[in-house]
């Protein structure tokens, strides 16, 4: 099968975003299947953004925020994100969509190796799950 997944990543610019930058500076490679977007805080990503990404064809959504309890630049953004996406995953399961298509990862700023590794892992996992459209020809 010559299908390649494509993924979206939302990174909090204070932690995971810095990790992504360090990955570039240190020439650490990660899968090219992901498009990373820096946002001010993972606590402002709405479930609507994520589901919209799926509707537009993303096969998975990666969210990187600050490791609790004390690393979030805005103190509690990571908790907000956790609650939202924990619930969203539950909801997706009820709709018959694999909750594993959302991956949450938590960082202390410059952990670029962790970023690269988790992204590669995630891409592999999504490859196993198959396309978001469930293989229906469009």
């Amino acid at each position, binding site marked *: 099968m010559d299908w390649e997944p494509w993924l979206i990543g939302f990174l909090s610019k204070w932690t995971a975003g810095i990790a992504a930058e360090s990955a570039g500076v240190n020439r650490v490679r990660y899968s090219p299947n992901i498009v990373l977007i820096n946002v001010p805080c993972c606590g402002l990503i*709405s*479930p*609507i953004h994520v*589901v*919209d990404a*799926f*509707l537009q064809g993303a096969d998975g959504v990666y969210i990187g925020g600050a490791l*609790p*309890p004390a690393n979030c630049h805005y103190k*509690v953004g990571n*908790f*907000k*994100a*956790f*609650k*939202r996406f*924990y*619930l*969203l995953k*539950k*909801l*997706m399961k*009820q*709709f*018959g*969509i694999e909750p594993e298509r959302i991956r949450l990862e938590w960082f202390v700023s410059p952990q670029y190796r962790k970023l690269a590794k988790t992204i590669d892992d995630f891409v592999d996992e999504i490859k196993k799950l198959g396309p*978001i*459209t*469930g293989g*229906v020809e469009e």
Partner: protein
Amino acid sequence: MTRYAFLELTSCGDCLSELYMNPEINKLLEEGEIVYWPAYGIVGDPEEIGEVDVTFIAGTVRTRRDLEELEKFRRISRIVVAYGTCSIYGGLNGLTALLEPRAIADGEYVKLLMPTVKPVTDYIEPDILVPGCPPTREVMARLAKTLKKYISGGKPEKKIFLIPGEVLCKHCPRRPSNPEKAEMPGIRDPNEVVDDGRCFIEQGILCLGPVTANGCNHLCIRFNHPCMGCMGPARGVVDQGLNMIGSIGSILLKSREVKLLFPGLAKELDKLRDPMGYFYRYTLPKAMLTKLALRRRGVE
């Protein structure tokens, strides 16, 4: 004489009966003529009815016949009123949106069903939209007033949405005095809580007020029942469930999250056992995730 038709697609049909009994609407109907209402024995071939001035449509498009009738009546009617939440968002009938027709009907009947259930507004453009399950008396009065304007001819230039559409919380009698500080102390079962008159969410009871349009004057809330979302999404709300998840994320246990950490929060969130049923009781066919799930089945 003004000619009226009542079209009941797949629905319980109660809201149209209620509309008929409303004194102001009834007066209009008495002065005109009802040319089509199969539920009350006024039947006829839509092809032979001729022009209709006002058609009230309630219900969802579940069967193929629903769709045929709907399209016919849009063609022959001057003004179409989408009446009730089912016709605009899917309502309770919409809860079958994710079931395959085979799960609902047997044998021959499967063929009579559409692949999924959709509200009227997904197929035609109504002129007046009246959400509510059922719409309240004030809204009916507003409808009567609007119809009077167009009775002798013409039709609204733009779609008319008959409820204000602002968020229910805005004028809620239980609104917290300082909404910025409001916190949901956990997720509780309503029968565990002795109601103390505060905002339901501040008592740990899920209330869909933050994402639902106000067209009911807080009817349920005044009778101590949290909002179930029957009026559909408020203005600016994209998707009732997803927006509600956003709100819950902001205010659930917000003063204790640093202590509870992720496992503690997860434990609390697990108490919400059926988010889909709770958030989309009246709007399932319109949910973004429904669209995604149906696309996987090849249904657009």
